[in-house]
């Protein structure tokens, strides 16, 4: 258990506990989060139909497992993947946000990683801003640089991953400050400093993972490159 680490144990910083946010912030973020989940459920149901349950289930478990791996981040500590942009790049904005929301709900209820009342805020920060925002940033960069080249995909993924983590940490700092829990300057400097580094780690891992998938199974990506669509899908895993 990593309880003994520094006060700023970076990976906890985006999972706000109960009692840290005030009523107005909680109300607004819950409404946003519920709307997001409702729309996502509809879109996912329409896209995947009866494949939705098994596919979303295993993908949520995948993000959950991926978040558990610690890797060294620049600056000396270790961090873990948040996975918002990765989910957006691989599954698309709707399924990606849904998967992230499911992961946060399960983490909060079963593992107390983030409180129940602030679930809305956590979903907005990482699902809406992280996945949705990250996905559209990635897509516009990718399409601007050339849809079917690995380079543009990776540049898009890197910038989107970094920005999404950094921006959601800033939004989180604002939420804490508006709730009167932490003064704004302290919240922003503490959050921005650590998440500047964490976001670099997130970008590196996202880029490596996406390029691995691009080279082995490009047809699994949300916007597969045109040359991959023609190929029939091949299985690389035996299990």
């Amino acid at each position, binding site marked *: 258990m990593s309880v003994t680490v520094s006060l700023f144990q970076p990976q906890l910083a985006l999972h706000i506990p109960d009692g840290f946010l005030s009523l107005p912030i909680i109300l607004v973020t819950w409404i946003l989060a519920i709307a997001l989940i409702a729309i996502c459920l509809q879109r996912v149901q329409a896209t995947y139909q009866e494949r939705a349950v098994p596919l979303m289930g295993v993908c949520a478990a995948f993000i959950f497992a991926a978040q558990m791996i610690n890797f060294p981040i620049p600056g000396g500590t270790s961090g873990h993947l948040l996975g918002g942009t990765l989910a957006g790049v691989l599954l698309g904005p709707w399924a990606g946000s849904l998967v992230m929301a*499911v992961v946060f709900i399960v983490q909060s209820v079963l593992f107390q990683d983030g409180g129940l009342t602030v679930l809305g805020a956590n979903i907005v920060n990482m699902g809406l801003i992280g996945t949705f925002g990250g996905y559209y940033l990635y897509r516009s960069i990718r399409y601007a640089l050339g849809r079917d080249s690995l380079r543009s995909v990776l540049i898009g993924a890197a910038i989107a991953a970094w920005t999404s983590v950094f921006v959601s940490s800033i939004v989180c700092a604002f939420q804490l400050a508006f709730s009167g829990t932490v003064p704004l300057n302290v919240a922003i400097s503490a959050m921005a400093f650590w998440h500047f580094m964490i976001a670099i780690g997130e970008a590196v891992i996202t880029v490596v993972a996406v390029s691995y998938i691009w080279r082995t199974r490009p047809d699994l990506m949300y916007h597969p490159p045109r040359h991959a669509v023609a190929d029939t899908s091949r299985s690389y895993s035996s299990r």
Partner: protein
Amino acid sequence: MLLHLGAVLLATESQTNTIWTRLTARSRLLCTLLIVFATALTPNGRWWTWAVYAISIALLILISRVPLLPLLKRVAVELVFVGVVLIGTLFRQGGDVLFQWGWIQITTEGVTVLGSVTLKAFLSLLTVNVLILTTSITALLHALAELRTPPLLVAIFSSMYRYINVLVDEFNSMQRAARSRNLMSDPRRQRTVIGNMIGSLFIRTYERGDRVHQAMLARGYSGLPPVAKMPQPSRLDVALLTLTIVILLIGQAIYL
């Protein structure tokens, strides 16, 4: 390695026959939600309200006969976050200055915020953990379904819950394989290896999803899994829910 694991094992039904476990899972979930929301939404500085809530949560812990050690272990995890607020109190203006050292000062307002927020987080964590340690996951999922959560969402939860351990195991075995080939010694290399692992795990995951879907179809699956009949709420459920609401309202009424 992580806060998440370990907990999976605890999340089983451990308790025998107590008043709390005789309630339906739905009532238990509702009680927990009510208490947590009431605790967390009380404005800072209302100590007597939390005193009332703390007593009722203590009673809840007593009557549910939750094992205390696991309970406290799980609560300790999240309190790390309180550190951020602790730093915040050092720089906060307002109220009387209690202590000053250079430009760092501790004010009464800072102490109030720190105390309130810590207390709220602590009480909420206790309550949620009582629920999790006494209620099985399947019962919770049924309770969610009964509370009108979209069935698709509940089905995704249950399928995710089923595969968490599978994927975590797979990840651990990949990590072990990488370590035994000496790939994890250099931090720069390590990031590449982990990135590749995540990529390859996604491919395996996606294919597993397809296989699971095929298997479900082969067993006659047609969109949503069937929902079992759950025990109906009794008079005890109604009584305890009312009692919870009354206590919560009394707590709030102190400051009216």
